[in-house]
């Protein structure tokens, strides 16, 4: 699950998200994993429960993928959930990542799409490079596992 971005890749991706947020006049921009994880977010997302947001966004994109294959398309790259005040625009970045933009009436869907279109190739490059160099950490040590086991017992009352 997920990609552990090193500091330099993280900063590069964050700067793309920040620029997207400001030029699209969005409330928040999120970089999400297709398996439901959150890679990073910028903007006004403090009042948002990011974990279910990310899981549900990933589910929407997955459902869209299946719909696409039913009508003979290789993918539906983007989808929009339009609300009265707040809307959400989702677009796949590559095979693993999704870009989510939360926006309100201060901007338009057209502008959001346009700005995402400009940001997407930059993000792809950053993520491609990060994945090439990424060596997943497989273990955290026996002390971690032992403490986690104890914590689990404690969580359920021994």
């Amino acid at each position, binding site marked *: *699950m997920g990609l*552990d971005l090193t500091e330099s890749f993280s900063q590069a991706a964050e700067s793309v998200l920040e620029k997207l947020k400001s030029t699209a006049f969005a409330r928040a921009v999120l970089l999400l994993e297709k398996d439901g994880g959150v890679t990073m977010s910028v903007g006004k997302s403090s009042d948002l429960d990011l*974990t279910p947001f990310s899981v549900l966004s990933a*589910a929407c994109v997955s459902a869209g993928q299946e719909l696409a294959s039913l009508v003979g398309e290789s993918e539906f790259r983007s989808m929009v959930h339009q609300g009265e005040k707040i809307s959400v625009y989702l677009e796949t970045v590559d095979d693993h990542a999704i870009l989510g933009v939360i926006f309100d009436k201060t901007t338009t869907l057209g502008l959001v799409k346009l700005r995402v279109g400009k940001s997407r190739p930059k993000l792809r490059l950053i993520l491609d490079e990060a994945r090439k160099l990424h060596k997943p950490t497989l273990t*955290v040590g026996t002390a971690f*596992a032992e403490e986690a086991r104890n*914590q689990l017992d404690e*969580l359920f009352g021994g």
Partner: protein
Amino acid sequence: MPFISPTSREVSCKIVYCGPGLGGKTTNLLQIRDRIPAGSRGKLVSLATRGDRTLFFDFLPMDLGKIKGYTTRFHLYTVPGQVHYEASRRLILRGVDGVIFVADSQRDRLDANIESLYELERSLDRQGTRLAKLPAVIQYNKRDLEYICDLTLMERELNPLGFPQFEAVAIRGEGVVDTLKTACKGVLDRLA
């Protein structure tokens, strides 16, 4: 494989409840939610039909807090049991770290259990994972009902790989925590 981020000091593991439709997967998750202190669990997300059948999945994040400096979380999912939801099942099983198979002990559900287990193995195979290689737990649910299968028979049909197994009455919360703890510990052992 669990997500371990030395950069953001985070460990995330994914456990998926599988099994035949109406076997008690969502009930397991609801019981777990009610047994975890509010500060250690997130919002339960349930994508169900009006008849309360799981349409896509249920999701419950469970937070173990900071362990050796790592924020440690388990993400618990259920998948729809009905055979025709294969696509949803495949999506949820992507990146799974541990499996809980909730079997329905009722005699007339034995074939459904076997078919569901076969479907699970097929879905995992398609993503290059083998059930035998995963930490897995079998839960024999609904042990309180009258017309249920003998445990020996269920073990023979559903657990040839010898996974840890528990008898349960999920609706009363019996066996639910032991099942989950065993699955989580199986995943944690792989991190050592």
